């Protein structure tokens, strides 16, 4: 009997072969008892073809493992995972706009808490 991790490893290899610009990382999180798959970069994650692929994978996952949870996320979701394995497409990070965006993100100011709101004035101060 195949395990959820084995199933996902096989599926993520297929995904990375089809969507060659992505990186997929997997973790089983004990506290929440769920399987997490992080797919980056965000601009690939949000594409309709990849979303459709995730829907098909989740549907099959639920058919084989009805009592298990599978969650897809990306680097913009604010949750860090500790990957047990990572699979990269052959063209991952070969796009200059992706590399540039990843580096620029560290310079963008963000509100410190959910209770903070940036006014026009604070953007000017941050700049």
């Amino acid at each position, binding site marked *: 009997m195949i395990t959820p991790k084995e199933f996902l490893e096989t599926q993520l290899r297929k995904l990375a072969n089809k969507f060659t610009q992505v990186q997929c990382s997997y973790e089983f*999180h004990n*506290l*929440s*008892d*769920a399987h*997490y798959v992080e797919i980056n970069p965000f601009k690939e994650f949000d594409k*309709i073809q990849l*979303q*459709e692929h*995730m*829907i098909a994978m*989740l*549907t099959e996952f*639920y058919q084989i493992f*009805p*009592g*298990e*949870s*599978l*969650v*897809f*996320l990306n680097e913009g*979701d*604010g*949750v860090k995972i500790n990957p047990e394995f990572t699979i990269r497409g052959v063209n991952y990070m070969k796009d200059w706009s992706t590399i540039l965006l990843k580096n620029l993100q560290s310079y963008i100011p963000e*509100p*410190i*808490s*959910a*209770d*903070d709101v940036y006014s026009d004035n604070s953007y000017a101060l941050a700049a």
Partner: protein
Amino acid sequence: MSNWLSKSNQSFSIANDTSSTMLNNRVHCYYYGCVQHMFHVLHIDKKMSETEISDNCNPNINKGNGGTHTWLAKFFFEDLQKQSHVFEGLALSNKVGLLKRLRTDADYSMSNMQHSDLNTAKEHSDKIISILLKRYKK
């Protein structure tokens, strides 16, 4: 208003209380505010009784369902698929899983939630509620 909706509103009142510095509890309440709203939808829109919902959430009765949180994410993913809102089904399922992870870290891990975690919990919660309000009876 169903009692579940009332409970959900109370949970979000605590979660959104900006005077509170109890971030772990606020993250907890963002998650359970969503769970209670999903129960409300199952009762009002899907006409499920409290017993039906309870039985579906109980892995000892419905072994394939995997417990409350797994079943809820799966139920809404499949139900939105049936309504042809497949992308919203995927988004809701993912957001429930991400918020659940933050909630279990808030409740069970040694570390404390930070303001960035609270931000994230609110974003995921807002997305879940916006899909539920858009696609189901209030």
